[in-house]
């Protein structure tokens, strides 16, 4: 079997896997499983990027996501009630609307592929992708690249400033209250 065939089969598998795991994220009670499913979905997308020729992007996506998902899992276990999903729960609102929106957005995007006929201009030398990206990063798009870096730095500083226990206006716990879940109590408060 040829390399092209292998690539197609792999791509199909990754596509199926990414969508299924992405769907499972919202179908499991356990926050931890949700995080791991999302990670699997990301890894599959990374695999697809690699097959599409964007080797660097795909690997970087996978690399990024490992740490990100771990943080996400830890945050969920910290803050969410019943993180292990040991007792069944249904933490969902406006379900029908959400389903409708999801399906319609899927149809919209998918139909684009058939309504619009895109320019047939395949990437002729995918093996050069990484080199080109590097030259682009430190060449014409240097400004964009730097901006992204500064943006990330600003995000880090801001995140620490917001999340730290002592904010600009003194200790964050001051006047902290837990709002009630039931509407009538909330109306009262």
């Amino acid at each position: 079997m040829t390399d092209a065939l292998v690539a197609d089969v792999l791509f199909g598998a990754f596509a199926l896997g990414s969508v299924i795991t992405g769907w499972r994220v919202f179908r499991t009670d356990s926050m931890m499983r949700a995080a791991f499913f999302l990670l699997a979905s990301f890894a599959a997308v990374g695999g697809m990027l690699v097959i599409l020729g964007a080797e660097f992007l795909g690997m970087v996506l996978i690399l990024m996501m490992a740490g990100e998902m771990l943080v996400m899992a830890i945050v969920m276990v910290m803050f969410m009630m019943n993180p292990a999903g040991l007792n069944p729960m249904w933490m969902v609102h406006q379900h029908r609307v959400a389903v409708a929106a999801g399906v319609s957005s899927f149809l919209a995007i998918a139909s684009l592929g058939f309504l619009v006929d895109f320019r047939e201009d395949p990437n002729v030398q995918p093996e050069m992708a990484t080199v080109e990206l590097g030259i682009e990063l430190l060449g014409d798009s240097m400004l964009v690249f730097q901006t992204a870096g500064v943006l990330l730095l600003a995000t880090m500083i801001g995140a620490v400033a917001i999340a730290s226990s002592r904010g600009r206006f003194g200790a964050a716990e001051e006047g902290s209250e837990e709002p009630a879940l039931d509407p009538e109590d909330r109306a009262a408060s």
Partner: protein
Amino acid sequence: MVLRRLLTRLAAGAPVPVLPVAGLGMRDALRELRIRPELRPVDVPAAASVLVAAGSLPEEFGDPLALLHDGMPHPRAVVWWNPGNSAGPLLRRFADPTVVDGSADELVSAVVRVRRELYSGHRPSSEPVLAETGRAPWEGVGPYGQGGSGMTGGVPYGRPLAEVAPDRDGLRLDVVPLTVGPFFPQFPPGLRLEATFSGDVVVDCLPLVNPFVDIAHHALPVRPGLDVFFRALFEPVPIAELELARARDHLVWLADALSAHGLPALGVRALRLTHELEGTAAVPGVRRLSRAIEWSQVLRWSTRGVGRFDAAGRTSLGGCGPVARAAGLPDDARMEDATYRALGFELIVQDGADAAARWRQRLAEVVQSLALAKRAGAQRSEVTGQVESPRGLLTAGSAPASRLLPLLPGLLEGLEWGDAVATIVSLDIDLEEAGLAERLASAQAGAT
């Protein structure tokens, strides 16, 4: 099939992973098993295939022991080494335990034989002691079998959802209550700690009462090396014997502490040293070991400032032996003994009052004790009604451990678990000694 037979043949030659459970009088004997090539002592039941309980245990340890046993994977067996006449009730809970009365060699051969029988099929794997339902009462309860009802109402899996408590960052997060012990591998035998964790941090903890105090009052075995200090309470004892016992006890502590810090190999070296204390190679050996410990600063790094007594705490350290001396207190019952003074005994003290200081203190005291033992010759100690045991001031009725236990909560709260374990290890709490001392007092009270 052939592969199966080959595997079994190979497995039969492997060092037997044993789960040691130290009862009264057998702590050091069990430590010695680490040197044996035929056995490999392990920390957790999941890794063991033979449960080696030694000495006599209090009744209340029956269920924890049964949990350990049921936690071992099949094929498994129970071997009980020198069960005092008080271990009977616990012994009877197991299907057919092998009882060994005798030396370590006999124990080793018995364990190896038991394992061989397990693999040759002549011995059935030991049946669980506790009924499954007793361990999981929630099974099938509730609409989903989750042991409760509702979203967060009910008690999922028989447990309530976690309570929240403020953590050190001002967030209110879930906490985990947990009773550690009595068989926690890094704890001294019998120590039980009711701790509450918030993540890696111990938010509060409470040591339970010493189980060895009101243990069934038969003729209980006394740990060799400990008995000499109790004899010294009533009769003059050769100082050489006392000091050698002290050095040996410190080295056994060192072995435990080293493996608690992830250095089991060096711990085995410390155990090997306990065998050649009489020889001339002892002092150089100890010095070499100390250098090997000091050489990597990592250990000091992971003990410095850990479990430090503040100025107020130091005042309550009277009679806590090396712990007190490591905190700079001139506290040693040997100063009252004229013979010791004649031998030119002078105090060793450290500053720091933290785990690192205690390590340095005990390492220094090993060398000092060996020197004293050499000088002492045949001289005997005075009988003053109090003895400086390896852990501190020992009298009939009170021992260092009973003074250290109340200090634990103030010391451990707010520490990360790793530091908490390092602290407990560095204090060298010997519940057996304390229990023996208090039983002695009650026996004397009964006599008069």
